[in-house]
């Protein structure tokens, strides 16, 4: 297998992150873990944005990933973190394969609202489920990796961080290739002119279906990692504000590069952490102004700061 420049850079950054994890304070590791895990969910949002669809309910798969990891450990004796994560992805794929049949018939605001509706249905079910802790959710059981049990606290945080960075790397490389592969480019083509895609003898619906399922699996992985990192899941994961946050981060980063959601997620976490600390009652306002600034000054997201020089030459 050959790796291109982007992939090698991603690997270098990932290795640097892992090493950095051994020397940095716990709170920073935690912040980065959550940011990267959320970035994976955002990757799912971005994959759909490339095809012209905005999912207002990606929290659905985030929640499915998280709850599967939680329930696997609590109720089914699946304590291996990797098996639990894989199971979460699998459940998300099955759910997406069913919902996708209906969702891929819709576009624009109808797709957005219908995806929102499905996530709110899950939210409603979880809130009503006493055995799953209702609105409080429940804690994730202590877990192992290949039979090894990291010490609870700093040790397990370190381990989740490493797992998140490494799975982030694998997913980033896969998405980087996916974007340039037939399905990725045809998703873009659908966004630009669906009628033409149809007249090339392709089914836009089945391409969007494949993309929807792939996006769901990536988002579920992010949800599973978040559950491992926080040690807790609750129905809020499927709530619409959570999905809104993913769209926020997606817009913040832009669609320009596979690394953009990771950078945006870190910026988002930092801004939010400091906003809550210094202006506890108006932190949403700060986020609002941040988004306003990005949309007005950087309509293609933070990534355009990085790519500005390159595109400037061509223009």
């Amino acid at each position, binding site marked *: 297998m050959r790796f291109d420049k982007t992939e090698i850079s991603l690997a270098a950054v990932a290795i640097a992150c892992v090493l950095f994890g051994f020397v940095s304070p716990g709170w920073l590791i935690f912040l980065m873990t959550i940011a990267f895990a959320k970035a994976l969910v955002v990757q799912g949002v971005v994959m759909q944005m490339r095809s012209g669809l905005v999912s207002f309910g990606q929290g659905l798969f985030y929640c499915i990933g998280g709850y599967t990891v939680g329930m696997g450990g609590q109720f089914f004796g699946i304590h291996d973190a990797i098996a639990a994560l894989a199971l979460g992805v699998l459940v998300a794929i099955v759910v997406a394969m069913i919902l996708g049949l209906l969702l891929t018939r819709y576009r624009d605001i109808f797709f957005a609202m219908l995806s929102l509706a499905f996530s709110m249905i899950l939210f409603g079910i979880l809130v009503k489920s006493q055995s799953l802790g209702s609105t409080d959710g429940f804690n994730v059981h202590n877990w192992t990796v290949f039979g090894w049990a990291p010490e609870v606290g700093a040790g397990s945080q370190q381990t989740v961080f490493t797992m998140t960075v490494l799975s982030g790397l694998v997913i980033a490389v896969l998405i980087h290739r996916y974007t340039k592969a037939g399905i990725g*480019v045809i998703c873009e083509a659908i966004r630009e002119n669906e009628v033409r895609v149809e007249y090339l003898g392709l089914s836009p619906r089945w391409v969007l279906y494949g993309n929807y399922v792939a996006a769901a699996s990536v988002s579920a992985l992010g949800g599973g990692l978040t559950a491992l990192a926080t040690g807790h899941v609750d129905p809020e994961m499927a709530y619409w504000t959570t999905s809104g946050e993913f769209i926020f981060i997606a817009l913040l980063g832009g669609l320009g590069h596979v690394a953009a959601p990771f950078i945006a997620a870190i910026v988002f976490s930092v801004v939010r952490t400091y906003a809550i600390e210094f202006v506890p009652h108006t932190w949403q306002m700060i986020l609002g102004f941040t988004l306003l600034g990005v949309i007005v000054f950087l309509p293609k997201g933070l990534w355009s700061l990085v790519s500005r020089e390159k595109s400037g030459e061509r223009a």
Partner: protein
Amino acid sequence: MTNILETRSLNKEFGAVIAAKDLNVKVAKGEIVGVIGSNGAGKTTFINMVTGYLKPTRGEILFNGKSILGHSPRAITRAGMARSFQVAQLFPEMSVIDNLVVALAAAESPRPSFLSPLRSDARIARAEEILTEFGVVNYRNSTVTAVPQGARKLVDIAMALIGNPQMLLLDEPTSGVSMDEKTGLMDTVMNAVRQHGVTVLFVEHDMDVVERYVSRVLAFYSGEIIADGKPSAVLADERVRDLVTGHRPTQKKGNGAS
């Protein structure tokens, strides 16, 4: 089975507007047929119905003797009938070559790959050959929005030909193209088409262009076919002169691109 395309009493109504009325069209394999008719005569509607974009109100459509009524545009494309559009339908924010590369990949397989790159060397080389054949290779890396109308029309037609169709329907290939570019454009298209041995039906307002290429003309008026035959005969027809070509001073109308 000599007729590649046959429609039987094809009708299309948009509310009170009758856009197609009992259209019975037979096109033989290898024929080059011209379609004339003023704006709103129902030419585009005919192409839209035949290629599955619009569902006829009534009637039957046979392609190679088999019904394609109710089939999707993609199924009809895959069956071997391609079309171009009155307004070029491209991927506006992609480069010209990427437009062709997407079309090439689509022609190879209806299922896109998940991980192997779409822009393979082989596809890019083939796309360049096609762009050269159509005389637009200098726009290779331009974004579609930065390319002039005439070149866009050519790219649109080139994309339609990529799947090696048996039949090609061209909807006003020269609309939006300046007078002196028209013949050049049509020569390019017709050369490509002849090499592929494709049956062609094309809509055109300019009678000189029509007479130059076709062996047969269909004249549309208000959803009906009012004349069908050799160009000289159709153009000499009283009703065609009255209603379509507008040789009477009172009937003379400009042909806007619609």
